[in-house]
């Protein structure tokens, strides 16, 4: 396969420095909704200014560039070993260019590797073969602040009186948003997975951020629940940065995963306002970025 390293560095640069327009649009609308003279308005105005500056100067939107999570769809026969090498090289390269902050810390020694590479899970690579022969790479950057306020519930949950149904799900999610307060850099986005085991549940919740935030769930009942959760989360009044205000959650996406009869997990992945997701589609002799 050909050398995609530079294209991958560009993917990283775009993701880290150039916030997708649909996310920026939601933040603009949120600004309009906040009270003149409020701290919430000051926060959103600063955020929007920051987005512009980062895009102009190719500097990271947020200094916590997170764990780079690559989701690769590849055609059968592709040399995955080689692709993996190129991705790791691109990550190192991008770190030298300061598009990424060195974020890989050995948990046992406490030493930062310095080049954003660390063991099997840093960066985080997910390979999936494509029957149709597609070749694309999604990159998601998600920082520690919002990662720390994700939560997983096991239903039934006694303290919330939440049962194994959609009403129980709604209760868990609102509780999670309340617990998060402003720590996840609200206004945020919610990725929710119903079902799975402890591991697949969290993974599925995070993977909802690869979807178009403007597309609702295909099941009307779930789509209505997504809307309801967003609207009710905003009624908590936590606001941007937890300063109090009207925008706490800008969107909610729900997915589900088959579960064991004995388990019923609800995983909430909390994405901050800096919802950094971009996709690179690899064609014959060039690439397209979205």
């Amino acid at each position, binding site marked *: 396969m050909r050398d995609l390293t530079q294209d991958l560095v560009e993917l990283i640069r775009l993701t880290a420095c150039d916030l997708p327009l649909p996310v*920026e649009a939601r933040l603009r*609308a949120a*600004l*309009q*909704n906040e009270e*003149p*003279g409020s701290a919430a308005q*000051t926060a959103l105005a600063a955020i*929007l200014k920051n987005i512009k500056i980062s895009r102009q100067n190719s500097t990271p939107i947020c200094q916590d560039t997170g764990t780079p999570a690559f989701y690769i769809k590849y055609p059968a026969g592709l040399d995955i070993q080689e692709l993996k090498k190129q991705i790791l090289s691109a990550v190192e390269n991008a770190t030298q260019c300061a598009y990424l902050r060195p974020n890989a810390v050995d948990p046992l020694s406490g030493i930062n590797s310095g080049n954003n590479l660390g063991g099997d899970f840093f960066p985080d690579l997910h390979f999936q073969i494509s029957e149709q022969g597609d070749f694309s790479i999604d990159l998601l950057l998600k920082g520690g602040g919002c990662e720390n306020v994700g939560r997983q519930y096991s239903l039934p949950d006694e303290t919330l009186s939440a049962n194994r149904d959609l009403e129980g799900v709604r209760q868990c999610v609102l509780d999670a948003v309340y617990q998060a307060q402003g720590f996840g850099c609200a206004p945020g986005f919610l990725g929710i997975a119903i079902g799975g085991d402890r591991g697949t549940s969290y993974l599925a919740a995070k993977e909802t951020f690869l979807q178009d935030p*403007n597309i609702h769930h295909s099941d009307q009942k779930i789509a209505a629940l997504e809307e309801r959760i967003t609207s009710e989360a905003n009624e908590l009044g936590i606001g941007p940065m937890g300063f109090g205000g009207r925008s706490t959650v800008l969107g909610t996406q729900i997915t589900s995963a088959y579960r064991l009869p004995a388990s019923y997990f609800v995983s909430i992945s909390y994405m901050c306002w800096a919802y950094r997701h971009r996709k690179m589609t690899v064609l014959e002799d060039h690439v397209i970025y979205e």
Partner: protein
Amino acid sequence: MSPITKEAALEYHKLNGLPGKISVTPTKPLDTQQDLGLAYTPGVAYPVLEIEKDPNLAYEYTDKGNLVAVITNGTAILGLGDRGALASKPVMEGKSVLFKKFADLDSIDIEVNTHDPEKVIAVVEAIGSSFGGINLEDIKSPECFYIEKILQSKLDIPVFHDDQHGTAIILGAALLNALEISGKKIDQIKIVFSGAGAAALASAYHFVKIGVPRENIWMCDIKGLVYHGRKEEMFPEKEFFAQGDRPATLTEVIDGADVFIGLSVANIVTPEMLKRMGASPVIFPMANPDPEIKFDLAREARPDAMIGTGRSDFPNQINNLLGFPFIFRGALDVRASAINDEMKIAASNALSKLTKEPVPQDVLKAYGLEHLEFGRDYIVPKPLDRRVCLWEAPAVAQAAMESGVARIQVDLEDYRDQLKKRLNLE
């Protein structure tokens, strides 16, 4: 009223050999050498140094506390569109003059010659401290939303785009009164807009703040319904109100609506469309100079409706003049750092309450009416009702004090008396 012709208008602007509509008047004696020495050098150095030490003293030693800048870049002049900064000057002078005439606020017009929103922001941010408040005017959508919000976060004086919020506040008052008459609840009505520009969107955002669920607001513009996934003429502030994911026409959307608000163009609403609205509908076709449907036609189609337009020759004229002079008056008199939602809602409520008071003779005379009483044909005060200031400015001042944005406190009774004196309303 005589017809407003081009000749008459141009003549007015040159009347008595005086070009334009405003001039500046000194407020201190400048007759003797002593006066000059105090007003200018060397005396003026003292207030300069005091203000440098404490910027708040600018309110004591300069006109800042009574000065509103009317600022535009000329990109959305009335119904004329983008005609450029200089061409907008007669409109801006007119706005300044209305501030002075109706609220005794000194006002100067500033036309910023740039289309770049960042430059508009930079200019206004840099000159902001000279004023007690900034009235943004005739700046085109969608930039106007962003420009206003960013300036609000940067300046510690009110920044208020009247095209957006003036309309919203008056409409809010009219809507509340109309709903009281029809007995409908604000969280259960369907509102349909024709037009999704500055006034329409600001009004929609305002309605959400006073209790209308966002899902109950439907916006239609020149491309029809604003829906999720629409590509044409879309921007973030408009997307917030997207409904469904399929196109639809105004005719389809107005079905079952309780409220129709027109901030678009003339003659696009038919009697048949109005007939499909709910019982006791509220109909506000406000396109200028000709509404979306003529008042009489609307009245004929729906005798049970409450109808308001922007025209002075029909009942329920919804005119921004009922708002901006008195909102700024109240805000500046308590040195408010912003005109926030509480103040806007207080302004709306004051107008709404005033409409329920008995109407004095001079108002009836001014409009050639025998009788006027709160009801279908009187849901908002008349623009030339001199009581508006005494109701609205104190309400705004009170809301500023209660919501923590006022930098000085006033006793409301004293304040009302002061206003009466200031505006010769004894």
